[in-house]
């Protein structure tokens, strides 16, 4: 994004009302990429950084704070370049506004908040500092070269006189943006690289932190929705006679978006289940009243499907024609050669629920043709677009206040709660808070897609893997393994197929998305190959990475993107080698066998971050195995905040381990058979493994940490289980039944 470096193009300086400095940040050039047409013309400048005459600095937060910590880390990066006093910095959540949609169109996700704003926010901070410095130089009539800035003060190194930022704000507002500013070099940072405390902690421990679910609008009523348990199902009829008898019930009506409008909404973000809305004087009455509601659903095609039938549908596609997503070298003859040994395995990564800690919710107030929505959400822009289409009102009439949320993990990309709340408020003409119950959140989740992955290798009599073939069968077109640009292990011939079955559940993003599913099959299969070849799993990976994959003619990649993609591949190959070499050199992966247990290794890239994990398991306990220790080695470039960074990797490990132990969903008659934390279990404190995290030291630009710790966990555990008991489990979750055979054989 070279245009970003042209400061005059995207930064502007102005005065605050009542004096003070405002630095605006915007990218008119980038605005052209913003999806909604209305945003292209007349892009106004925002007030990204402002400094009061009393020295108080306000930084607008344009990202959604959902536990990943960017609400603190992005301001830290700015404060560092600005050489500001951290205690004088106030962080204000930006009301969703196209003025702030520079970069990523206002979304928060993909572990990219810091990586994608790194250049822009540093430049904004450094430019603001340059203005203040120049203001001091003007006041003293000296050359700025003799001035130094730290802790919100500009000091004249000759006279030792100082000005606080507040004293300079007025003067600085009159200066035009300098053409060039110098950014700090690694080593020169004050806050970056330090574990600066999370800005939300104080409010959290006092109980004063407010999330979407705590929103309060004067005069609001409360709503709960009985939704169709089947994806794609519709309301046939309902009887609310008994519901209306309950004191406190205000209204009952269906929510069923007409098919024509449904088709115009975003297929993932805009999906809204049919349901019956109960509006009441309290959340409790609305929830309770649902028990007296009688609804008949038309489940449609999915009503006759189950997880077993879906599994059969997927398996049936195995030998059917599929889309070939990659074809390097000449795979055919390798598999036809009867002298070659063919190794073929099937891996399954099922649907996964989110169970975000803060149940889904949204508060809306529709009045005078304007719909205001308060919600913790990852993609306000697409939400506005989908609310506008669903309610048939102009986009300009939808206003979104982005509130903090209690964990998103991909689920809060969806606009469903906003559409529902907006619809209800429009219908009743009052502000309303809609709260999903935990049961709603699980039964009507937008799940991680189901991937069935067949991996096949052709091995010559002298034990060399000459070809790999992969067939990914998924409930959505996004199996990462089948994407041409995500292979790093250099086999001479590689072919990938991809096919899709109609999904049984609504799908959505789930922490680490396709990488999670892809990593399991890729990293377990590599482990199987290593054992078959009699090689150490770590050395074998290094060996495969020591050659570059010959990408042939990259037809699928658009012009101009090839160079960038190849540079990224090079970076990731280097980082993978570095991570594995670190593990080897540090003795983290030794040959010694663990008494009564085993260890397994796996590695995956997410974005530009590489994470390898070593799992240590013991064959004991309720599930037949326990996961005792996880060691993670991570290369993510610079670590902005080590405490947060470790937290993200730790959290990812725990997230993924929940899926290994208890993940997946049972589905009968098209409906999810889980409902709450008793049957949709997640990891609790007494199951916590020991976790050791090592970041490879690096001065390179930061590349994201929210998700990369998730994908390697499941394959590392599965490989460790094999090491411990000789049993290959090629799916998650891993239950006792999956190990029975080996437990028996050990007992014998």
């Amino acid at each position, binding site marked *: 994004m070279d245009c970003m470096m042209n400061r005059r193009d995207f930064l502007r300086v102005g005065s605050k009302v009542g004096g003070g400095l405002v630095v605006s940040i915007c990218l008119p050039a980038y605005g052209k990429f913003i999806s909604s047409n209305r945003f292209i013309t007349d892009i106004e400048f925002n007030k990204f950084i402002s400094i009061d005459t009393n020295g108080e600095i306000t930084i607008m937060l344009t990202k959604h704070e959902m536990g990943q910590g960017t609400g603190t880390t992005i301001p830290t990066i700015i404060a560092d370049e600005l050489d500001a006093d951290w205690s004088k910095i106030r962080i204000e959540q930006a009301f969703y506004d196209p003025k702030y949609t520079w970069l990523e169109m206002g979304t928060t996700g993909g572990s990219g908040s810091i990586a994608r704003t790194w250049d822009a926010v540093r430049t904004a901070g450094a430019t603001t500092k340059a203005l203040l410095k120049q203001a001091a130089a003007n006041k003293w009539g000296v050359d700025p070269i003799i001035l130094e800035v730290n802790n919100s003060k500009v000091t004249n190194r000759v006279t030792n006189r100082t000005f606080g930022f507040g004293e300079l704000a007025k003067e600085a507002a009159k200066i035009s943006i300098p053409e060039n500013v110098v950014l700090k070099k690694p080593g020169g940072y004050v806050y970056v690289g330090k574990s600066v405390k999370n800005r939300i902690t104080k409010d959290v*421990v006092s109980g004063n932190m407010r999330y979407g679910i705590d929103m309060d609008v004067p005069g609001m009523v409360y709503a709960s929705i009985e939704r169709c348990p089947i994806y794609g199902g519709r309301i046939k009829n309902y009887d609310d006679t008994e519901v209306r008898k309950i004191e406190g019930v205000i209204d009952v009506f269906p929510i069923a978006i007409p098919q024509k409008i449904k088709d115009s909404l975003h297929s993932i973000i805009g999906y809204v289940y049919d349901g019956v809305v109960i509006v009441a004087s309290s959340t409790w009455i609305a929830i309770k009243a649902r028990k007296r509601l009688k609804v008949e659903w038309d489940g449609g095609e999915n009503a006759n499907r189950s997880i077993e039938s879906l599994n059969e549908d997927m398996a049936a596609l195995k030998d059917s024609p599929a889309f070939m997503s990659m074809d390097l070298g000449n795979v055919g003859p390798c598999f036809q050669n009867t002298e070659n040994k063919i190794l073929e395995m099937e891996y399954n990564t099922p649907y996964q629920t989110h169970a975000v800690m803060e149940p889904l919710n949204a508060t809306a107030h529709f009045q005078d043709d304007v719909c205001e929505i308060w919600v913790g959400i990852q993609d306000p822009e697409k939400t506005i677009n989908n609310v506008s289409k669903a309610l048939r009102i102009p986009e300009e009439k939808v206003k979104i206040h982005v509130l903090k949320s209690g964990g998103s993990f991909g689920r809060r990309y969806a606009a469903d709660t906003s559409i529902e709340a907006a619809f209800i408020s429009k219908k009743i003409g009052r502000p309303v808070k809609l709260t999903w119950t935990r049961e709603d959140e699980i039964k009507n989740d937008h799940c991680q897609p189901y991937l069935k992955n067949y991996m096949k290798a052709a091995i010559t009599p002298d034990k060399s893997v000459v070809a790999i073939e992969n067939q990914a069968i998924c409930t959505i077109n996004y199996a990462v393994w089948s994407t041409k640009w995500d292979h790093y292990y250099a086999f001479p011939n590689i072919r990938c197929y991809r096919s899709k079955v109609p999904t049984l559940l609504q799908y959505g993003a789930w922490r680490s998305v396709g990488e999670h599913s892809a990593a399991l099959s890729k990293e377990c299969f590599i482990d199987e190959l290593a054992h078959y070849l009699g090689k150490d799993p770590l050395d074998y990976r290094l060996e495969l990475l020591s050659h570059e994959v010959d990408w042939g003619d990259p037809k699928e990649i658009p012009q101009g993107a090839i160079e960038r993609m190849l540079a990224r591949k090079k970076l990731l190959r280097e980082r993978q080698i570095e991570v594995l070499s670190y593990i080897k050199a540090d003795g983290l992966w030794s040959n010694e066998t663990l008494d009564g247990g085993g260890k397994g290794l796996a590695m995956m890239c997410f974005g530009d971050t590489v994470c390898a994990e070593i799992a240590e398991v013991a064959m004991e306990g309720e599930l037949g195995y326990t996961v005792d220790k996880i060691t993670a080695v991570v290369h993510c470039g610079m670590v902005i905040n080590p405490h947060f960074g470790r937290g993200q990797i730790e959290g990812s490990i725990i997230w993924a381990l929940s899926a290994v132990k208890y993940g997946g969903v049972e589905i009968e008659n098209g409906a999810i058979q889980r409902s709450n934390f008793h049957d949709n279990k997640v990891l609790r404190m007494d199951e916590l493994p020991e976790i050791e995290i090592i970041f490879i030291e690096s001065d390179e630009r930061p590349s994201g940490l929210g998700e990369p710790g998730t994908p390697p966990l499941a394959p590392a555990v599965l490989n460790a289980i094999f090491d411990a008991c000789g049993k290959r489990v090629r799916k998650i979750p891993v239950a006792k039944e999956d190990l029975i055979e080996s437990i028996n054989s050990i007992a014998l």
Partner: protein
Amino acid sequence: MGHYSLKINNKIYPVHIEHDTPLLWVLRDKLKLYGTKYGCGIAQCGACTVHVEGIPMRSCSIPIDSIGDKSITTIEGLSKQSNHPIQIAWEEEDVPQCGYCQSGQIMSAAALLERIPNPTDKQIERAMKGNICRCGTYSRIQNAIKSAAKKINGLHDE
């Protein structure tokens, strides 16, 4: 509907509400004490933990009718200035990620130290396994509890 006089955080709150309303929804919808969180509604996650007569309980599963004159403490009333040793330790360890489950975690932890001032790792696990954290802050919670216990008992790191 019934009239109740609830003793919460040393204050009396008169409430007129349905008999079966769980304490959680009285706190949140009626009294706007939003520090206590809704997480599951069936006493499985601990997000709604409050103290009833000093005992940690899941407010989502206590009907208002069963409270009588028992005194209730929520996160807002745990200390005067958010300076309970557990709250201080939480800040020092910088425990929260999203923070949503933390008021429940803090209430469970404070009750644990009240009962066992110097808990072992196993005792901490046993007392805290009813509180789910999806961000995975468990190890930080353990550290915070241990450091608060040390302070309460007058022990300090060498």
